[in-house]
């Protein structure tokens, strides 16, 4: 069972892009560097690889195209015919055939040029051959670019074909244009087919799904068919004919008995008789639509006769098993008033289901299954009747619901008052306002030179109340402040001044604090060491304190001692002296303050070593420093960066020694001499003798000492 997933076909690129893709891929995925000096076999291999790679890519891409496009003979005849109707079968096959030949030509080109590349004896010649090979392959693709464009269009169209399953339960709707097929379709399914008053609104097949007896049915809406000889039919009509011919479905033939579609009943009857051969073996239901304009009983004699003739034909299609009830063959309905729509659908689905069940029952497989089924029915216990029990409230509600009238829609109102162009609905009639009389008032847009819209707010009243509350609180506060008196005495002028100053200062501080608090998250607190504005200098503090009438010297000393590094013992003694001083955290390094030499009152000698860091006194620390320096001296002489630096810049520095001569002289045949950085001459006889002489006198001395 082929899946009719035409959406899975890969995109067919246009000719130029195809070439670009393959060539850029070849350039990226194959090695790119080759030089004149390489061995000739390597050069050949390089270029042969490129030619082979391009050919393989072309082959792959063209093969995917050929494989993914469906073969018209391999798919269901409905789709085969539909595709033939839409895109001419011959053109389609020709295009695919061209792609196939192109693929073979490219393979042949690649083979020829690979053979020629074997005789390439220079880089230039191999390169020319590769360029020629790729060029010829690209020309082949350029020549088939019209076919590629055609196939891309087909692919896009095929991907949008409705997904009709040819084997499942299907209901087909057919008839003249404009009889109401699409409206019926919209009523029973969720398909949103365009419904317009002009003919041939539906230009293709549309699918919708509907449910009946817990089974899903496909409903196919076809474009209208005109009564013409078969050869004259255009593509749109051929679509519906194809659908009729190949799908085993229940057919609903729509009749417009009011004639508002523009065609008379006789024309429609003529159409029916011309295509009745297509209705063979299909449950047929004749539906008379638009009964709201013209009821079936009001038809004229001739028209009635035609309709009855059609009904006769339809009766012939009833299967033998089903009892020929006249209800299921000729039905009336109106899609506008929803009258009879459901019964039509039910009739069609029922007939289809019956037919399908009949066919299935007769097949061999069912007989096997049927033998295994057994429906067990409970045996009646006694003869007591047990009818359905419905509570009283539900019955009442049902009765009320039946009585309740349908809600009046705006659309009905519009239709009553003259239609779309005449009546305009009042949009303001559902407004919810405090006073109903305000509904029809006109809202001003500009008031006193301001835009009213700028001041409009849904919760404007609440905001107003909030503001008033705040205002009230503030006023209270102010009153409280003004009423404040110290122990009931009246303040002197001076005191008042001071009080006002204090209050001002306090307000300023509060404001600053609030500002800082507000922006604390967005603005980090700048530490003092980045204080560029010099707001927090000791001098400023001193000035400020003196302006207030306080002696600033002790505070300034304290502040200064915090900013500069001090010996621990000194700071400790200071703490002992001034008990109520503030604690000192430790040495705060402030490079800036250190640079300012005038602020430094006590300076240290250059060689002075402060004890600390685990040393008990200066002497010990001095010794440690000296040891460290001695160690680094040797390293620095060797130009080493540290203990772990073992880099040897040149293994055999020429300026130090003639290493060649050294190696040659010390070369042991069959081995190699080990070279070191320093000169380690092998012990010679002379040195041995000297050593011996040295040893001997020492030994003699020993002798003499005894």
């Amino acid at each position, binding site marked *: 069972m082929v899946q009719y997933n035409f959406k899975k076909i890969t995109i067919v690129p246009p000719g130029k892009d195809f070439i670009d893709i393959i060539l850029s891929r070849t350039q990226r995925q194959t090695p790119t560097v080759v030089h004149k000096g390489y061995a000739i076999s390597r050069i050949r291999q390089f270029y042969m690889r490129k030619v082979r790679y391009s050919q393989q890519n072309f082959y792959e891409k063209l093969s995917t195209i050929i494989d993914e496009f469906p073969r018209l003979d391999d798919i269901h005849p409905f789709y085969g015919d539909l595709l033939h109707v839409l895109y001419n079968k011959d053109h389609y096959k020709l295009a695919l055939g061209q792609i196939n030949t192109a693929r073979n030509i490219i393979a042949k080109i690649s083979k020829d040029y690979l053979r020629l590349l074997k005789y390439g004896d220079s880089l230039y010649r191999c390169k020319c051959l590769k360029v*020629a090979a790729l060029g010829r392959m690209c020309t082949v693709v350029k020549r088939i670019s019209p076919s590629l464009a055609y196939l891309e269009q087909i692919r896009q169209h095929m991907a949008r074909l409705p997904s009709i399953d040819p084997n499942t339960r299907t209901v087909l709707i057919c008839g003249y244009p404009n009889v109401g097929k699409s409206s019926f379709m919209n009523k029973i399914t969720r398909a949103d087919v365009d419904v317009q008053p002009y003919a041939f609104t539906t230009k293709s097949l549309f699918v919708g799904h509907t449910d009946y007896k817990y089974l899903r049915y496909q409903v196919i809406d076809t474009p209208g068919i005109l009564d013409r000889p078969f050869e004259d039919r255009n593509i749109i009509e051929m679509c519906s004919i194809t659908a009729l011919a190949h799908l085993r479905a229940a057919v609903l033939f729509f009749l417009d008995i009011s004639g508002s579609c523009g065609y008379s009943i006789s024309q429609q009857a003529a159409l029916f008789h011309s295509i009745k051969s297509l209705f063979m073996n299909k449950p047929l239901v004749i539906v008379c639509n638009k009964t709201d304009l013209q009821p079936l009983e009001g038809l004229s004699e001739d028209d009635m006769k035609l309709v009855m003739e059609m009904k006769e034909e339809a009766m012939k299609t009833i299967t033998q098993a089903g009892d020929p009830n006249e209800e299921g063959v000729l039905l009336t309905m109106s899609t506008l008033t929803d009258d009879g729509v459901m019964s039509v659908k039910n009739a069609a689905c029922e007939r289809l289901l019956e037919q399908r069940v009949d066919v299935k029952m007769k097949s061999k497989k069912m007989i096997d299954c049927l033998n295994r089924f057994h429906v067990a029915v409970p045996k009646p216990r006694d003869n007591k009747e047990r009818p359905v029990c419905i509570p009283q409230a539900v019955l009442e509600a049902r009765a009320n619901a039946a009585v309740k009238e349908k809600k009046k829609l705006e659309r009905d109102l519009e239709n009553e008052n003259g239609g779309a162009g005449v009546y305009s609905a009042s949009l303001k009639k559902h407004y919810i306002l405090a006073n109903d009389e305000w509904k029809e008032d006109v809202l001003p847009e500009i008031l006193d030179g301001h835009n009213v819209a700028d001041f409009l707010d849904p919760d404007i009243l609440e905001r107003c109340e909030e503001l008033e509350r705040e205002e009230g609180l503030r006023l209270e506060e102010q009153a409280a402040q003004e009423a404040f008196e110290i122990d009931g005495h009246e303040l002197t002028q001076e005191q008042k001044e001071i009080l006002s100053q204090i209050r001002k200062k306090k307000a300023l501080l509060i404001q600053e604090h609030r500002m800082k608090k507000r922006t604390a998250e967005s603005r980090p607190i700048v530490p003092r060491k980045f204080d560029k504005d010099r707001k927090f200098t000791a001098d400023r503090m001193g000035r400020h304190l003196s302006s207030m009438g306080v002696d600033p010297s002790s505070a300034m000393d304290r502040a200064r001692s915090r900013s500069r590094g001090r010996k621990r013992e000194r700071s400790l003694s200071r703490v002992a002296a001034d008990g109520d001083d503030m604690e000192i955290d430790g040495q705060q390094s402030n490079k800036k303050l250190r640079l300012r030499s005038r602020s430094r009152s006590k300076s240290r000698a250059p060689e002075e070593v402060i004890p600390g860091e685990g040393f008990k006194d200066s002497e010990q620390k001095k010794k440690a420093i000296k040891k460290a320096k001695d160690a680094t001296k040797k390293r620095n002489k060797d130009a080493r960066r540290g203990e772990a630096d073992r880099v040897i810049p040149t293994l055999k520095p020429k300026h130090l020694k003639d290493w060649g001569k050294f190696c040659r002289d010390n070369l042991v045949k069959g081995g190699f001499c080990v070279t070191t950085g320093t000169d380690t001459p092998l012990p010679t006889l002379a040195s041995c003798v000297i050593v011996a002489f040295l040893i001997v006198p020492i030994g003699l001395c020993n002798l003499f000492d005894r």
Partner: protein
Amino acid sequence: MPQGDYIELHHKRHGRRLDYEERKRKREAREVHRRSRDARKLLGAKGKRFAKKRYAEKAQMKRTLKMHDESTSRQKVDDDVQEGALPPYLLDRDQTQRAKTLSNTIKQKRKEKAGKWDVPLPKVRPVAEEEMFKVLRTGKRKTKQWKRMVTKATFVGAGFTRKPPKYERFIRPTGLRFTKAHVTHPELKCTFNLDIISVKKNPNGPMYTSLGVMTRGTIIEVNVSELGLVTPAGKVVWGKYAQVTNNPENDGCINAVLLV
């Protein structure tokens, strides 16, 4: 037959986005910036392709602009002078024109006698023997060097059989043998794929002609029965000469121009 028109249907029913025109205008305005960024930043093969495309576009734009521009151009106004028109002071004299009409065959015979042929490529670069032949070492110790392998395109003819391998001095490998040539008719300007009948003359020497080596400038004889040419006498012409115009060993094919 429209099948994917649900998008248009949606537009018909609900209209477009409220800011559709604005967005469209902005998108089109951004195209300019995108194109300039590509022109500046694309590198490598993509850059070359882009530059080529852009150049073609610009040339086309310039052409259309120039076409639509107003321009003052002066053109020489020529009074048509008819063929054979005489100035007034020479009228009233009988002038007869005499011309010798020679048949094509006579012309060819004369040319052949003179040894001069009017060919499209009169001079070609001479090909050295080192370039033409590759020395093959043979023998037990690979010291004998009397065999040569041809490195250019060759033509051997239908009934060709090799000499016994022990005695053949010039080896013409199968991979380099060609039987067909792409021959262009200089007047019709179209190219045909014609069979080679023989190699007539190789400008590098008679040895190469006898070997059938085809390099640039070689005169070959091709089978033109496809073209359907007929002599004035009524005989069908089935062989004509053509001159090779490319280097077949570099291109893998033989391109020639018919000598008419």
